[in-house]
């Protein structure tokens, strides 16, 4: 029996991921005790998320590039940034959940555990440069989210959401996997950077020329799969139904986390692996996806009367804006995308948080996501209405809120590409801004309803628990902070592009 060399493990590197996993296990153990009914799972979850955030910050301080397990775990700044967003959104989502779980029939402890594990999967996906690990991370959080979306299992809507999400998710997994297989086939490696090197050689005419087409197949299928996760048209179909049916805090977390890490992987794919090969192809594809997403998302959101569906379509539209930035492929685009995402996170979590509060539970499931339920909210709950207005205005892109600054960055990047001669980006920026005008109509409808429509009958005061209120307030104030002092975060995102590039450079020599 020959000796197997056990790999050395840098425990600090896996710290955030490990913390989440261990916390989830502890929460699951608590679920087996009578304490499951108490606040213990909630507190443990918060503590775990806090600890994970702490170890993430420690990693941030430690170094710019750090990797373990042969680049399978790459805790570069980009990963840490997106990981931070994931953890933060998980934190807010947990804060939103406690009150929500009190009135819906769902097992709380398991809920928290799955949420933690989903966050863990997202972290894994965000912090990897390896196709296999990306896939594993993707599956971990996807499976957890399939369950979470159906966790109120006595409600048909919830289960229907789970079913749709599951079937379509598994379907898209098939494509993404096939894409990975082809990329592996063409390059002989699962490591994105090694793939990158190989891809360059291939397209430079070295090696087997037949593999170039296989590489293209892989790229196409992977983009399709990731487009599903980021909810870009025409892969967005699951979004409205799943967002509507899932428990609202889950929806919020799902909308942010899934999209975030998928976008990061997309960035890694197009900026590092295909950063200088097949550029024309993926740029065009992403641009078209962006165009479609903005168009369909905004227009359909316009005619929605259910707030969750409206937010769902709006999230499709926002995927479009984000894709514009990714498609730009420049450092401006990358940093704009990452910055916009921070703003998107706060608004999404906040808006869904308010939605979860305003809704009410009946036997058949959550009711009251109709717009009419917001009538008179400004008088029954002025604070809540104000916060919701802030979220809506930020989504509209009204300065000085974060949403505006983000849009500004994105369209700056796009227009720059446009002026450099890429006509599609001119179209993208014009259409994008024009459609964000359209978006004002439906975001404003919420504000109009809250402030200017009289409720039919008595509008009961919505009870807001302190933790929920805290989460919403944090989101709202965060939007002001990001809008007025975006420099700190933006500088961070600026450095991330260099990180992504530098990683490739480091590897390629």
């Amino acid at each position, binding site marked *: 029996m020959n000796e197997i060399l056990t790999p050395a493990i840098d425990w600090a590197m896996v710290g955030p991921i490990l913390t989440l996993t261990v916390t989830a296990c502890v929460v699951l153990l608590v679920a087996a005790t009578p304490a499951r009914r108490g606040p213990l799972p909630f507190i443990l979850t918060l503590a775990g998320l806090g600890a994970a955030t702490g170890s993430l910050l420690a990693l941030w301080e430690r170094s710019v590039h750090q990797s373990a397990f042969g680049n399978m775990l790459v805790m570069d700044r980009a990963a840490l940034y997106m990981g931070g967003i994931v953890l933060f959104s998980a934190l807010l989502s947990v804060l939103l959940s406690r009150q929500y779980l009190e009135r819906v029939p769902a097992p709380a402890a398991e809920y928290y555990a799955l949420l933690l594990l989903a966050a863990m999967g997202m972290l894994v996906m965000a912090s990897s440069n390896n196709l296999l690990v990306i896939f594993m991370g993707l*599956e971990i959080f996807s499976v957890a989210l399939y369950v979470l979306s159906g966790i109120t299992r006595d409600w048909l809507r919830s289960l229907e959401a789970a*079913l749709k999400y599951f079937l379509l998710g598994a*379907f898209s997994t098939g494509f993404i996997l096939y894409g990975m*297989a082809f990329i592996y086939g063409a390059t*002989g490696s699962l490591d994105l950077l090694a793939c990158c090197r190989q891809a360059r050689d291939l397209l430079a005419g070295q090696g087997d020329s037949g593999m170039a087409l296989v590489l293209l197949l892989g790229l196409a299928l992977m983009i399709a799969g990731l487009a599903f996760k980021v909810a870009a048209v025409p892969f967005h179909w699951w979004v409205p139904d799943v967002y509507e*049916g899932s428990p609202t805090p889950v929806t919020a977390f799902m909308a942010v986390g899934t999209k975030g890490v998928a976008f990061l992987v997309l960035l890694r794919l197009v900026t590092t692996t295909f950063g200088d090969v097949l550029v024309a192809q993926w740029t065009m594809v992403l641009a078209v996806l962006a165009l479609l997403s903005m168009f369909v998302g905004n227009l359909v959101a316009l005619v929605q009367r259910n707030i969750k569906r409206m937010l769902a379509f709006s999230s499709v539209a926002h995927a479009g804006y984000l894709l514009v930035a990714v498609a730009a492929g420049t450092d401006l685009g990358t940093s704009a995308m990452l910055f916009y995402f921070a703003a998107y996170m706060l608004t999404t979590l906040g808006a869904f948080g308010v939605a979860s509060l305003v809704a009410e539970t009946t036997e058949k499931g959550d009711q009251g996501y109709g717009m009419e339920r917001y009538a008179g909210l400004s008088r029954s709950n002025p604070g809540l209405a104000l916060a919701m207005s802030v979220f809506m205005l930020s989504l509209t892109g009204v300065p000085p809120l974060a949403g505006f600054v983000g849009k500004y960055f994105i369209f700056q990047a796009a227009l720059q590409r446009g002026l450099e001669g890429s006509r599609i980006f001119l179209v993208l920026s014009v259409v994008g801004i024009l459609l964000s005008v359209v978006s004002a109509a439906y975001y404003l409808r919420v504000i109009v309803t809250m402030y200017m429509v009289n409720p039919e009958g008595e509008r009961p005061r919505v009870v807001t628990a302190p933790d929920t209120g805290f989460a919403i307030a944090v989101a709202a104030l965060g939007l002001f902070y990001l809008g007025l002092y975006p420099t700190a975060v933006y500088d961070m995102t600026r450095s991330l592009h260099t990180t992504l590039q530098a990683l490739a450079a480091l590897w390629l020599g």
Partner: protein
Amino acid sequence: MPLVSYISLSAVLFVIGVMGVLLKRNVLTIFMSIELMLNAVNVALAAFARHHGGLDGQIFVFFVMAVAAAEAAVGLAIFIAIFRLKQTTDVTEINLMRW
């Protein structure tokens, strides 16, 4: 068999799987078709691994199986739960949420 035969076979299986997803009505059959797709991917991965002479592809297959197992567990649980409420496995009858 040469590589191209294996990959062609994988493509055929994959397309059949896709067709199954698109054409069938029963959630269980749809899910089986998805398994068919994963299986096709596995063939491609193993063949590519053999082509390159590395084991990465085979390892990947191993993980795909693990994933398939996980998905099956959760998916079937969802089917059971939904069947309990609605007594159907016909996806065309599951469209409460639309528009």
